[in-house]
C-alpha cells in the first residue's frame, strides 16, 4: 500500500465497491482487496515471523474481512480497517502457536525510555547504489527487522514497509500519533545500528576518525 496505490484505491471508489459487494456482487471482493495483499501479508508476517503462518494468517484475515465487511462503517479507511484485522489475525495465530509469552506485542518493552544512539559509518554514503544491490544486505535487513522487539517491528512494518501514514498507523495500533513517531524513530535507529557492521567491511580506515566521535 504505497501512497500511489492508496490514491488509486481512493480513485476507484472503495465505498462504492463495498456497497456493491454487500448488495450481492460478491466477486468484486477480489478487486477490492487486490491492492492490499502485500500489506496484509507483511502485517501478519511482522507478528508470526514465518512464511507459512503468515500466508495462512493473511488468507484468514482476508476471509474474515469478507465475512465481516458489513461491519465496516467507513469511519477509517478500508485499508486501515484491513490492517487492524490482519494484525488481530496475526496475534491470534501467534497465541495459537504458543509463542505469545516470548514476544508479546502488548507488553511494554523494557528500556523504552532509553535513548538509542545511531552507529557511525562513512562508507554507505560513498557507495549507496552498490551497497543497496548487495544480496546479503537485504538478508541482513530482513534479519534485523525480524529481531526488532514486537512493538517496533509492527510500527516499522506499517510505516516503512506498508507505506501507511502516521495517522493510519495510530488508528490501526490504537496509540497516539506522537507515540507512532517516537517508536518509529527508535525502530529506525535500532536497524541503523544493527546494519552498520554489514557496511563497515569496506569502510576506509581513517586515522584519528574514531577518536573524535562526539560520544567517545
Amino acid at each position, binding site marked *: 500500500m504505497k501512497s500511489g496505490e492508496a490514491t488509486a484505491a481512493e480513485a476507484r471508489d472503495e465505498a462504492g465497491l463495498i456497497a456493491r459487494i454487500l448488495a450481492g456482487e460478491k466477486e468484486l471482493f477480489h478487486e477490492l482487496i487486490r491492492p492490499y495483499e502485500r500489506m496484509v501479508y507483511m502485517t501478519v508476517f511482522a507478528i508470526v515471523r514465518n512464511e507459512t503462518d503468515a500466508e495462512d494468517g493473511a488468507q484468514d484475515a*482476508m476471509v474474515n474481512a469478507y*465475512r465481516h465487511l458489513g461491519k465496516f462503517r467507513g469511519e477509517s479507511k478500508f485499508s486501515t480497517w484491513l490492517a487492524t484485522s490482519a494484525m488481530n489475525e496475526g496475534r491470534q495465530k501467534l497465541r495459537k502457536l504458543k509463542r505469545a509469552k516470548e514476544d508479546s506485542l502488548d507488553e511494554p518493552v523494557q528500556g523504552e525510555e532509553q535513548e538509542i544512539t545511531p552507529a557511525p559509518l562513512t562508507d554507505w554514503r560513498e557507495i549507496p547504489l552498490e551497497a543497496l544491490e548487495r544480496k546479503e544486505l537485504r538478508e541482513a*535487513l530482513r534479519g534485523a527487522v525480524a529481531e526488532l522487539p514486537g512493538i517496533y517491528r509492527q510500527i516499522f512494518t506499517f510505516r516503512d514497509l506498508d507505506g501507511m501514514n502516521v495517522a493510519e498507523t495510530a488508528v490501526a495500533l490504537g496509540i497516539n500519533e506522537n507515540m507512532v*513517531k517516537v517508536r518509529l*524513530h527508535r525502530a529506525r535507529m535500532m536497524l*541503523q545500528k544493527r*546494519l552498520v557492521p554489514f557496511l563497515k567491511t569496506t569502510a576506509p580506515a581513517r586515522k584519528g576518525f574514531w577518536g573524535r566521535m562526539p560520544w567517545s
Partner: protein
Amino acid sequence: MELNCKHVWAHISDYIDDTVTAELRADIERHLEHCEICSAILDSTRNILVLTADDRTFELPVGFSKRLHERLALVLADEADAPTLK
C-alpha cells in the same frame, strides 16, 4: 540555533519524514554541512528505508496471490459465507 550531533540524531526520523519545522530543518542542514558523521548516519538510515521499500527485500511467497484468490473464490461461492451486515 547551533545543534550538536545528539540533537540531530533525535530528529533524524522526523527530518526524513519532513515533519520538522522549517527552522529546525535549516538548523539540521547547517549542521550536516560540516558534520560527516551525522551525514553518514542520515544517509544510511535513508538507505535502509529505500531498501525496505524495495519489493525484492521483503518478498511475497511465490504464488501467494493465486492461492489467496483461489481460497477466496471458494468462500465467495458458499452462500453461507455471505458477508453479514452487522
